[in-house]
């Protein structure tokens, strides 16, 4: 446990799965202002006016232990249709060139696997989806875009990123999905949750 600020406590964990598990336990254990999982850490914001750091630390310690004994519900599986390239994937051709792949080879590699959602974050509902084929490793854009459309699909640093809502973003874009990622009036506002399994399918083949 490490202080991240006057009302923030950071907990180091092994990886995305452990981070999500610890975060879930913490949310169930007490009334925090926010509990946010990163890739290898979880940060808790506590109510500094009502709770002191020592008491917060004790609650966290207990919840972190329980996280290791958590029984996970079975993973949800989703198929996400993607329209690759064109206006929806403005970087697709430059990525193909950079990786020396044809457009159909890139699509084949991207649709070949089932991936796990590692984390939701950055902007509302943005999904970090791990496990990309190493042949698809590209860097982020030098200059982030001020506005990326909802449903955009980007790849960078070994992950696929899915934009649930419009917003700023720095991932090179390869396509867009019409899959409903944001449901503002349902109990679960963002369809994808950490731990969900997703498979991308080429929408032009449907």
């Amino acid at each position, binding site marked *: 446990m490490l202080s991240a*600020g*006057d009302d923030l406590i950071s907990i180091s964990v092994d990886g995305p799965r452990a981070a999500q598990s610890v975060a879930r336990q913490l949310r169930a254990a007490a009334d925090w202002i926010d509990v946010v999982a990163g*890739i290898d850490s979880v940060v808790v914001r506590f109510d500094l006016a009502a709770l002191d750091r020592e008491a917060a630390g004790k609650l966290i310690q207990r919840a972190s232990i329980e996280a290791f004994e958590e029984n996970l519900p079975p993973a949800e599986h989703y198929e996400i249709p993607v329209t690759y390239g064109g206006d929806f994937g403005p970087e697709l051709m430059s990525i193909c060139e950079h990786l020396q792949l044809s457009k159909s080879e890139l699509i084949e590699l991207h649709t070949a696997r089932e991936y796990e959602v590692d984390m939701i*974050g950055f902007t509302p509902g943005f999904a970090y989806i791990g496990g990309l084929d190493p042949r698809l490793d590209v860097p982020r854009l030098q200059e982030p875009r001020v506005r990326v459309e909802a449903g955009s699909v980007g790849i960078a640093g070994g992950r696929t990123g899915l934009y649930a809502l419009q917003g*700023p973003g720095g991932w090179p874009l390869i396509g867009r999905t019409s899959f409903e990622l944001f449901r503002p009036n349902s109990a679960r506002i963002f369809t994808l949750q950490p731990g969900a399994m997703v498979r991308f399918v080429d929408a032009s083949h449907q």
Partner: protein
Amino acid sequence: MSLRILKAGLQTTIQSRPRVGLRHLGVPASGAADPLSMALANKLVGNPACMAALETTLNGVTLEFREAVSFAITGALAMVRVNGRAIELHCSSRAKRGDVLEVGATTRGARSYVAFAGGLKADAVLGSDSTYLPAAFGGHAGRALKRGDELDLRSATEVSERRTPEQFRPPISSSWMLRAARSCETGQLRDARRLFEKKIRVGNRNDRMGIQLQGETFTTNIEGDMPSVPVFPGIVQCPGDGSLFILSVDAQTTGGYPRVAKVTRADMHILGQLRPGDSLSLIERNDSVAAIELREKHAYWREWLPDIAEVI
């Protein structure tokens, strides 16, 4: 229709309380950048502290009242007129149908707050009326106001004239001190002492997402991007170019830059008033002193604002 926007200004939005408990879904706080000033404006017209109000940026707003209502303006120092006649900040007034309110450019501070008795109607999304611009939800169609926009009030009411007592008018400066605690990567900063000693200038990149600092650059021992880590409003990041960046109310929920400080909860409301060119010093506070100072600040303000813990 209760109000019509005649001149929208640089960025005028409807703001209310922050969104909490949703950062793990990537949903930022949003809400007033200077919630203390918003609460003071609401207080003057008899509203709860976080009732939806207008937040203007640097050059104000001009609007026409389409029905009679009490209103009040707080926040940055600015000239305010009704039908061309100057009125005071921190003082509620009654407007008649057809009156024109002009909130001028700020001379000190960055944001003015205009509250209306009964409160503005707004789109409530994810538990708050606040506008979140990047994803375009909340407030008025999720966007900054434009000329010609028509706004409604929940229930226009008139209240007796009220003024903020002198001791409860937050000073608006051009030279700020912000109390800040160490964060996870402060220890990785080369020459960390300089962070809490030097005066730093507020840069031109300054919006509801965050505030860039200029004039002093810093380096850390961390090379390249870190794996995504959770971030919060108040976190001071040190990106690769060395210019510190203070995250504000609309900040993203995770980031890849070292976190080298965090503005204490007690002083977060000040971020909304920093303007490009202002000077800023970060004053180091350890976590236990920060907790005591927060309670002291709450105790001081509670006398005028009973709901101060919702605000600061």
